[in-house]
């Protein structure tokens, strides 16, 4: 017997097992990828384009991108990742900009928005002045700001006075603004009410990296961008307002990202440059050479028309608007309550049976089927509270209840991940619970809370069953004009097309197009959440 030979242990089972596991892991993802590919092909119909069109874009866009990506992957993977993030940012902001334009075209007029911003700015200014000179206590500040906000938004004595029977004395700021006979042009209002606030945010972002002067430059550039976009709009064939909004929503974040990249990692700009540049070159080339693009079902007409019984003419516009409105209601209703409940459970709640009950309760609520939430909405909001069926308010409230447990659970995890040493340091210095929560816990937990909220909103956008249960109409032809107007949503519209209008024409044309739009929005939101989470996890 050899004393130096330990023999070999067979690894075959292990290796087979390992590959089997890898296969299991990839099956779902690959299957989804294939399905998404199929639906994208069905919706965009790439095979109907001229071969020349394909070739042009291949040479100007695909090939350079692959070359640059491959080069960066080998030499500087960080730059590849950073560059990819910028491209992603561009895509997400463009999508977001589309939604914002929709809001300002069909939901909120620039005058109303201007009035609203003014109505918020005036009390803020008054409050700042009062704080600086008089230094009131917290109770007084809260009361004063609440009163000022109320007067500003609702007038004196406002709806409360109406209930009591008092005659109106002074109108709200919004009403005042609306009654001014001669107003500046829409885009000028937007410059003040959109470019300015966005510019202030951009300015403070830049100032945190450089200094005050850098911040002012950023503010100035943002406003200038808005004005330039408005003035250049007619020559581009679009209206001034949407032009400004597009330029601001896409240009400012992307511009800031490019600026940061220029300062820290110049090579990262290679990828966005070749992607954007290649796309533009390709677009000009196919125009000049006269190649026809694909006859995609996802086109401008699809995104801007309403439903029609003819599949080719059907569009997603009212559903997109409806989804946006619902999301607005959901954020307003669920974010404060969800995060507030999480803060209570993690920082304030004593360790007793009531707390444990609430704990168990929340995890059970997270597992309740969405259709039962719809039933809840139907029973409580429609039947019990007498609200009309299928409105923005009822739909928003029902969806909020649905995602409330999700927001609570993910916020709790984010808060729990704040290291105990920091709380100890704060309490050791005699900070009260609220001071510790406000100054130490929340700032640190905020990225996690934000990520969780974005993912929860993604879930809410894709939900159909609750909306059906509360009686949302299958098709609407226009956007809701107020909170109590009927509303549809993207997944609901797609469902209606797939079932109620389930003719082969719809299945070929409208349904894939709707699916592609819906999935794109969701992928954008999920990617945003994942990127945010990675960035802040690395920073901490």
């Amino acid at each position, binding site marked *: 017997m050899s004393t130096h030979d330990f023999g070999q242990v067979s690894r075959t*089972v*292990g290796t087979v097992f*390992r590959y089997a*596991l890898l296969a*299991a*892991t990839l099956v779902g*993802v690959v*299957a*989804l990828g294939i*399905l998404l590919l*199929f*639906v994208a092909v069905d919706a965009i119909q790439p095979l109907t384009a001229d071969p020349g069109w394909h070739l042009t874009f291949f040479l100007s866009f695909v090939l350079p991108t692959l070359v640059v990506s491959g080069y960066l992957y080998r030499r500087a993977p960080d730059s590849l990742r950073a560059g990819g993030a910028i491209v992603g940012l561009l895509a997400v902001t463009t999508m977001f900009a589309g939604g914002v334009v929709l809001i300002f075209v069909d939901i909120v007029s620039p005058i109303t928005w201007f009035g609203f911003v003014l109505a918020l700015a005036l009390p803020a200014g008054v409050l700042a002045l009062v704080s600086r000179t008089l230094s009131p206590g917290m*109770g007084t500040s*809260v009361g004063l700001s609440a009163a000022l906000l109320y007067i500003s938004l609702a007038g004196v004595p406002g709806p409360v006075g109406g209930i009591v029977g008092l005659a109106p004395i002074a109108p709200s700021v919004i009403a005042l603004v609306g009654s001014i006979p001669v107003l500046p042009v829409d885009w000028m209002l937007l410059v003040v009410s959109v470019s300015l606030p966005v510019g202030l945010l951009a300015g403070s972002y830049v100032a945190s990296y450089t200094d005050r002067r850098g911040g002012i430059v950023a503010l100035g550039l943002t406003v200038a961008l808005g004005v330039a976009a408005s003035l250049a709009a007619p020559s581009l064939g679009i209206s001034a307002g949407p032009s400004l909004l597009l330029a601001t929503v896409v240009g400012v974040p992307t511009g800031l990202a490019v600026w940061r990249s220029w300062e820290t990692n110049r090579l990262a700009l290679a990828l966005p440059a070749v992607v954007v540049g290649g796309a533009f070159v390709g677009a000009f080339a196919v125009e000049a050479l006269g190649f026809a693009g694909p006859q995609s079902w996802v086109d401008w007409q699809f995104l801007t028309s309403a439903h029609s019984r003819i599949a080719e003419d059907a569009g997603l516009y009212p559903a997109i608007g409806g989804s946006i409105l619902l999301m607005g209601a959901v954020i307003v209703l669920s974010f*404060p*309550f969800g*995060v507030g*409940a999480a*803060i*209570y459970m993690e*920082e*304030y*709640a004593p360790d007793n049976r009531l707390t444990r009950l*609430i704990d*168990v309760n*929340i995890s*059970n*609520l997270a*597992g*309740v*089927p*969405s*259709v*039962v939430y719809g*039933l*809840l909405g139907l*029973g409580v909001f429609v039947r019990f509270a007498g609200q009309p069926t299928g409105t923005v308010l009822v739909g928003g409230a029902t969806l909020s209840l649905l995602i*409330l447990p999700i927001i*609570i659970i993910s916020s709790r995890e984010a808060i729990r991940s704040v290291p105990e040493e920091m709380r100890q340091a704060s309490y050791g210095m*005699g900070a*009260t619970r*609220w001071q510790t*929560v406000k100054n130490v816990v929340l700032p640190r937990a905020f990225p996690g809370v934000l990520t969780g909220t974005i*993912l929860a909103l*993604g879930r809410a*956008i*894709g939900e*159909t*069953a609750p909306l*059906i249960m509360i009686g949302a109409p299958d098709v609407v032809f226009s956007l809701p004009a107020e909170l109590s107007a009927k509303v549809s949503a993207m*997944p609901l519209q797609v*469902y209606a097309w*797939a079932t109620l209008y389930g003719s082969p024409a719809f299945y070929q044309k409208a349904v894939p197009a709707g*699916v592609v739009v*819906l*999935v794109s929005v*969701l*992928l954008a939101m999920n990617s945003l959440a*994942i990127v945010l989470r*990675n960035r802040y996890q690395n920073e901490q």
Partner: protein
Amino acid sequence: MSTDDITDELTRNVEGTTQERLPRLFFFICAAVSVVTTVSIVVLLATEAARFFSVTAPLVGFAGETVDAADFFLKTAWQPPEQFGVLALVSATILITVGSAVVAIPLGVGTAIYLSEYATPAARSRLKPALEILAGIPTVVYGFFAVIYITPVIQGVFPQTGAFNLASASIVVGIMIIPMVASISEDAMSAVPEDLRQAGYGMGATKFDVATGVVVPAALSGIVSSFILALSRAIGETMAVTVAAGSQAQYLNVLNPASYLEGALPMTAAMIKLLLSDITGGGLAYRSLYAIGITLFAITLAMNVISDFIAQRYREEY
């Protein structure tokens, strides 16, 4: 500083000020909302369902049409507004749940083992977001996929498959819940201390031995709990099955694999279908919604509680 001065400072009651009470009250109200929600669900479902069943209707003072509880729970024909035998719906739900379990459990556990024991950190950082995306796709889209892309494939193999069938619905629901099984199981496996693995390797065990013989058994309670949660999700899944499984209720044999080639109406889809029919006026059909609703709620609640119990009771304390 004298004793009196310091006494003044120390007895100031900082925590009791409005500044502290106000935030605390606000946060408590937020937490209470969740309790109110649950109570509302239970009260609502209970009272409306009570109006549906003959045996409970008198208790809530309801004098309209009702259905005998025995008929509801034991009959197999579901044709509102005449017949309300829930077994037809239950059979479809069971078939879909079992079918999705067949898909999701092996793939989910396999994924969890791979991510926890085999994957490099780089691979893990790419695979986990991919799985999250799997979970983030709207369910109605999955239903569409089932009808348009998966059913034709099944029909290629079994030509007698219906255009709406339970097989493709099960497959997509399975794919949908893989991330749930995978992430909860993976959490359970990650919680197994490294020392146990080291002990195994130290004895000359291969990775396969350690993964299957040490880690999985140690994390078993968490893994089983993930199954139960995922199945509860499958039971409650609505839109994918509404689009893909069919709209005609029929009672199927849950033990016969051939049932999967048929279309049927699971509980959740039945609720949607009821709503699309005429339910104005609070008639019997309207109230049957709540009967199914309370059944669903009870089932998912029970499964959540059981899953919690298993996770707590059988969890190894490290």
